[in-house]
């Protein structure tokens, strides 16, 4: 505690204590109280209630029937073919979306990190799609991914010499998922800006030292940039995995899970079961399985981080 507020502290000490706390401590607690309330009502409470509901059969109207682990057994024994399909689809999406976003934003941020003229304009252009995410973007890409839409107009320029044409993205079980993944790459702006800020924090003298050691362009990227960027890479990949396992909007609007469940994501499956069939118990079980899957990947990332994430100043 600084010397400056010594008198203030003394004055506070004279005041009454509440539950053994000083007035200062009580005030600190009061400031965060709104959050504690919100946390209890909207996060912690629902979190545990959700687990309880997942052990029952409950259609919201009518009685609650205790099932024990039956919902989970049904999910994990692959009795529910659509759930298995949904987990497969979601994993497919995550596996391509997360690394893709990381690599693309890394390259773009790297290009921007040179002494480029008009950097602000480029940054704006690249970030713009990210603020337009949501339904408008989904509708736009529904349009772009039509058989004679913008993407195929572009692709056909290159395919025409071979007599081929771009695929019917949304109508094909093979191409629907790649279509959605390509669409997701359009909104890499946030990651790109986090990376750009990271690049700008790398001290120039490290590059100079690497140059003296005879490192070329790739050597500098490999031995200076990437190691120093690992905290940002780690952060964005953790957030990316959590977010993309819950991908929903694009699939609901563009494909409605089709064709033939090729883009049925877990959250979409949950939505259909919970909010159109009102099977609350089963929907909660789906939520918990997805939660555990996400938790598993998050923990794996945190454990592996000890091996590859470099924090400057923390480790010599």
């Amino acid at each position: 505690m600084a010397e400056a507020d010594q008198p203030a502290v003394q004055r506070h000490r004279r005041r009454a204590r509440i539950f053994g706390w000083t007035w200062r401590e009580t005030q600190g607690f009061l400031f965060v109280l709104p959050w504690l309330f919100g946390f209890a009502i909207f996060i912690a409470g629902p979190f545990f209630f959700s687990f309880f509901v997942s052990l029952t059969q409950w259609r919201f109207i009518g009685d609650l029937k205790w099932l024990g682990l039956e919902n989970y057994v049904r999910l994990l024994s692959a009795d529910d073919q659509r759930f298995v399909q949904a987990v497969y689809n979601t994993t497919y999406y995550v596996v391509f979306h997360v690394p893709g976003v990381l690599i693309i934003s890394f390259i773009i941020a790297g290009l921007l990190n040179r002494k480029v003229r008009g950097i602000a304009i480029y940054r704006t252009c690249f970030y713009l799609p990210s603020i337009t995410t949501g339904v408008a973007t989904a509708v736009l890409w529904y349009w772009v991914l039509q058989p004679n839409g913008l993407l195929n107009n572009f692709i056909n320029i290159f395919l025409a010499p071979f007599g081929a044409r771009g695929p019917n993205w949304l109508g094909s079980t093979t191409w629907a998922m790649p279509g959605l993944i390509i669409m997701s790459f359009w909104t890499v702006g946030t990651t790109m800006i986090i990376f750009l800020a990271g690049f700008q924090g790398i001290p120039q003298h490290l590059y100079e030292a690497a140059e003296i050691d005879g490192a070329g362009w790739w050597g500098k990227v490999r031995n200076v940039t990437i190691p120093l960027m690992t905290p940002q890479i780690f952060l964005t990949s953790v957030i990316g995995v959590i977010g993309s396992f819950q991908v929903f909007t694009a699939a609901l609007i563009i494909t409605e899970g089709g064709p033939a469940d090729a883009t049925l994501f877990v959250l979409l499956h949950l939505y259909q079961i919970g909010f159109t069939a009102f099977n609350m118990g089963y929907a909660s079980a789906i939520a918990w399985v997805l939660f555990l899957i996400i938790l598993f990947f998050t923990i794996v990332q945190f454990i592996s981080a000890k091996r590859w994430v470099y924090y400057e100043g923390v480790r010599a």
Partner: protein
Amino acid sequence: MQRLARISFQTSGGSTTQRTLFAYVRMALGQTFGYSALLLVAVISLLPLAWMISTSLKAFGREFLFPPQWIPNPVVFGNYITAFETSNLARYFGNTLMIAVLATLGTVLSSSLVAFGFARLEFFGKRVLFVILLSTLMLPGIVTLVPTFVLFKTLGWIDTPLPLIVPWWFGGGAFGGAFFVFLIRQFMLQLPRELDEAALVDGASYFRIYWRIMLPLSKPALAASAIFSFIHHWNDFLNPLIFLNSEEWRTLALYLRFFLYTEAGGGAGLTRWNLMMAASVVMLLPVLVIFFSAQRYFIRGVALTGIAGR
């Protein structure tokens, strides 16, 4: 020429001229490649948006012409009028605006209050509580979806905008709200402590310090939070989809989806793409205006939390 001189100075010794020329050519090639790549990415970023605006001005039936027509002929501004006339677009716009503004107001006020508590005051369990706060950011929102629906249904809040607004008045208590507390706290930590310590000596209460000193000084962080929050609520789809069913409180995001399959959309295969795109432009416009007028807060907010995440 200046650059050339500098390079030749750096690579002194040996066959200077040769290496200088080589370095210069290499640099020029690198620059050209860099700029072309940037330009290409910029075009890819903007093309779909340009396409959206272009399509919104096309006559019905001329949306899929090949080769693509970038400047519509004829230009049909009437699409926008039709989009407003054939639906309650103005009402949906108002609904969305009201929800986004009220939720944002709550977010900024309550998050800054909580952030101040975490940034400046000491109390029992502060560290643990802050870790809990941060870990809610890692918690997938999907787990609480069903119970919150049950909660709001019990309260009779379904089909009202309350579920989309009230949780945001609890300082990060809403799902994902912890982000704003974190952002503002990070900013407050950077402010000099001498200011509030001096105020404390002068006898100011902590609330007064928060309201009169910290809040005005945290304007950049508050602005960033307000912008993020507004855009989040403006674009939000999942929550309105679950909590709002009636036409009365329909938001723009919901409307766009209904439009795609019903109403003036004409059903599958017959979608009125020009009207659809006009409605999309209407939805995007406020977000674009805010983005362009407050860009620096935006970028700063991303950078602040991004770096602080280490």
